[in-house]
């Protein structure tokens, strides 16, 4: 399925605004207790055992990956225009986006305890 650039731009705006809200909650989770205490291993793992927070983390991962790698694609397409370059950059950024989402999702799943049985 080919998306028009106008549709991709709408996705860019929507993911950007949505990311603003979920990242705000993510930062607040670091500030509900003293900052250094919030980074202690037990507290971070406790965050990962909280299912609504897991959903929030996964949505941050997906939203910022889409927004960030599409932004990078736009910058690279502004620098140079040819069919091969545009197709190459699009494929490269989609692959990088999927790799980052997969790696981040792996962390979320393992830290939650599905993989290592932390509980």
């Amino acid at each position, binding site marked *: 399925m080919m998306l028009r650039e106008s549709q991709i731009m709408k996705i860019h*705006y929507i993911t950007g605004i949505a990311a603003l809200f979920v990242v705000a909650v993510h930062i607040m989770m670091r500030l509900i207790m003293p900052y250094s205490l919030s980074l202690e*291993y037990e507290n971070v793992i406790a965050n990962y055992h909280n299912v609504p927070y897991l959903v929030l983390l996964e949505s941050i991962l997906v939203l910022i990956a889409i927004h960030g790698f599409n932004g990078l694609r736009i910058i690279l397409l502004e620098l140079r225009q040819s069919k091969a370059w545009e197709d190459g950059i699009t494929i490269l950024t989609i692959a990088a986006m999927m790799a980052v989402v997969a790696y*981040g999702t792996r962390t979320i799943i393992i830290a939650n305890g599905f993989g290592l049985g932390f509980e």
Partner: protein
Amino acid sequence: MEADRSNREGLMGWLNPGRYGWERVSYWLQRLTGVGLLAYFIGHVFETSSLTQGPDAWAAMLELTQTPLGHTILLLVIGMSTYHSANGIRLIFAHGGKGLGKPGRPDYPYDAVSLNYRQKSGIWIALILAAVAMLYGASVLFGGE
């Protein structure tokens, strides 16, 4: 036929703020902060993955990142993300045609109606918000808690 490459300025054309005033500065700040935030995001995903290797690996990663240099980088990220968000919202409105003013007869000195005080103040608001967020971030990160 050989393509005409004389109009390809590459990165220098992208970075040149000389010809277009504040809007050009805002244009490349939006891109520089975007690339910086993407680099931080990838680094943060990698940094957080040390959780999966247990408490010792997590402590080792914190030793690396919770340093004055690490906190300074985090402060930059706070500033970049605030500017990128505020200026991004301005751009969404501008792309939607909001706050651009009405088209008029082009009289000398040919100031573009679209580059009006609303757009310029939007850029300043983004910069001021970024500075305020960085000050608050500094109070948390270097506040001695």
